[in-house]
């Protein structure tokens, strides 16, 4: 009785649209409604699979996740170790580190774009003055992707930090003290005590970030709009472009069904893991 109203809402605005999108992916519907859409079977799917650009953006999407997430985890972990013992101002500094995580993605993207402007941006003019790299970072196919990844790392390593720090500070301190008494070296403590104890926390954080990375859109949209020459065309941007620039809604739906499947598979894994955590 209590659940029912929410279920109706969820059905109307989440499940039904997904089903509708699934239906679209089997038709030849375009953005402009020119005529009644025809059923075309799997041809959208086979077109997606044979589209080179799709594979290109899938590759970009994977490398985005492959570079950004481990680096975020690494930096976040190191900094969490740094904050493990109290020192003056540590609470203030910790809270300041949270700010980037919640900043509007659009603002983050635009700020990076401003900083990278060749003539007058903070980073752009700095790199120019030491005559390093190209004049325009975001217009260079090689570097645009790197800056997009950097932007993500900047924004999201504090997320990893917070999750790992929360995990670390909830560990019973006896473990580490006992290890210290036994003469365990610093790295031994890390590998033999901290890693095993934090494994589930870190798995959750990485899964959350992976699912989140599959929806990366606005930062990249405002930084590069997927360009130059599609060098930063991550999957959500690819889908957006197909649908709203080229009007191929049905085709884009087929590609988005693929993205949805990957996301749901990851979140199935995540939710199952958290269910198990609650049970034990």
């Amino acid at each position: 009785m209590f659940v029912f109203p929410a279920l109706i809402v969820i059905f109307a605005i989440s499940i039904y649209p997904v089903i509708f999108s699934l239906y679209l992916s089997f038709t030849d519907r375009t953005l402009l409604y020119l005529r009644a859409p025809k059923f075309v079977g799997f041809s959208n799917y086979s077109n997606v699979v044979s589209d080179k650009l799709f594979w290109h953006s899938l590759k970009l999407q994977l490398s985005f996740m492959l570079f950004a997430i481990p680096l975020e985890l690494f930096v976040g972990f190191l900094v969490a170790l740094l904050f493990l013992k109290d020192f003056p101002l540590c609470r203030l500094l910790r809270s300041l580190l949270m700010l980037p995580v919640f900043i509007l993605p659009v603002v983050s993207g635009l700020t990076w774009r401003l900083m990278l402007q060749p003539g007058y941006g903070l980073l752009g003019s700095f790199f120019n003055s030491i005559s390093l790299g190209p004049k325009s970072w975001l217009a260079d196919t090689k570097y645009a992707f790197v800056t997009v990844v950097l932007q993500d790392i900047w924004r999201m390593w504090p997320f990893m930090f917070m999750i790992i720090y929360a995990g670390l500070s909830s560990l019973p301190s006896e473990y580490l003290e006992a290890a210290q008494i036994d003469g365990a070296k610093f790295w031994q403590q890390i590998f033999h005590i901290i890693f095993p104890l934090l494994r589930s926390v870190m798995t959750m954080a990485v899964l959350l970030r992976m699912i989140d990375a599959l929806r990366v859109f606005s930062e990249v949209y405002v930084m590069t709009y997927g360009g130059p020459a599609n060098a930063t065309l991550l999957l959500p941007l690819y889908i957006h472009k197909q649908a709203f620039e080229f009007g191929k809604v049905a085709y884009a739906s087929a590609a988005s069904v693929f993205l949805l499947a990957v996301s749901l598979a990851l979140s199935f894994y995540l939710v199952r893991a958290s269910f198990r955590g609650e049970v034990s």
Partner: protein
Amino acid sequence: MKKAKSLRLILCLILVAIELVPIGVVITNSFKRDIDIWARGPFYFKPTPKSYSAVLENSDFRLALKNSLIVATSSMAVSVFFGSMASFGLVRFRFRINTFLIFLILMLRMIPQITLALPFYILFRNLGLKDTVMGLAVAHTSFNLPYVIALLLPFFASIPKEYEEAARVDGCKPFSIYWRIFFPLAAPGIVVAAVFAFLMSWNEFLYALVLSGPRSKTAPIVVNAFLGQYAPLWGQLSAGATIMLIPVFAITLGFQKYIIKGLSSGGLKG
């Protein structure tokens, strides 16, 4: 021992300083004039509120700010209303189907926005919801509602069963048990859920980009539009962005205690 402490302090100070550079860049640039930003390089700084007055006089931006507030508030209200009831029901009444429903809802909050943006665009156009503030609020509810339900589950679960039993003995009906006893007891959780739902809607860009139009534009869209086609108005853009950041930072710093909980319930949107 003392030395190690100050070493940590210095390292962390440097780290935080570097980390906050981009935020400093937005805020300082918001106090510069557009022309000074691209004519005089990054280090010229003579603070002036000109960009703020330009932005606040801009009727487009004012409308967008109003729209953002309306969309975020109404999506938050709807999500909290339906979400808290559902969360209560899922935790307090033990039906077999509940486990499945919880599983489903936890998974649904992970749907990529772009997947929903396409059907929303077509459905909204058919329903006349395109370019309306209400349509955007509906779209935002699609991620806020499952989020609120997920976040509130542990809050409702942690309330002792005795309250419920005592109320039932006194003849309380299920709805007043929820409304008079559980809702107030879960108030901290509800505030957190409300605040995060507001924030996610406030920060949202993709739905606004696809589903809004001249009447229902939200502030992130207008801030991005300051880039223009010919001359980028970085000063006004930064001023608009800084205004957008005020509630974000207030919430982040004010609700620190709950942030980890909020984040691990999947409260992150690109």
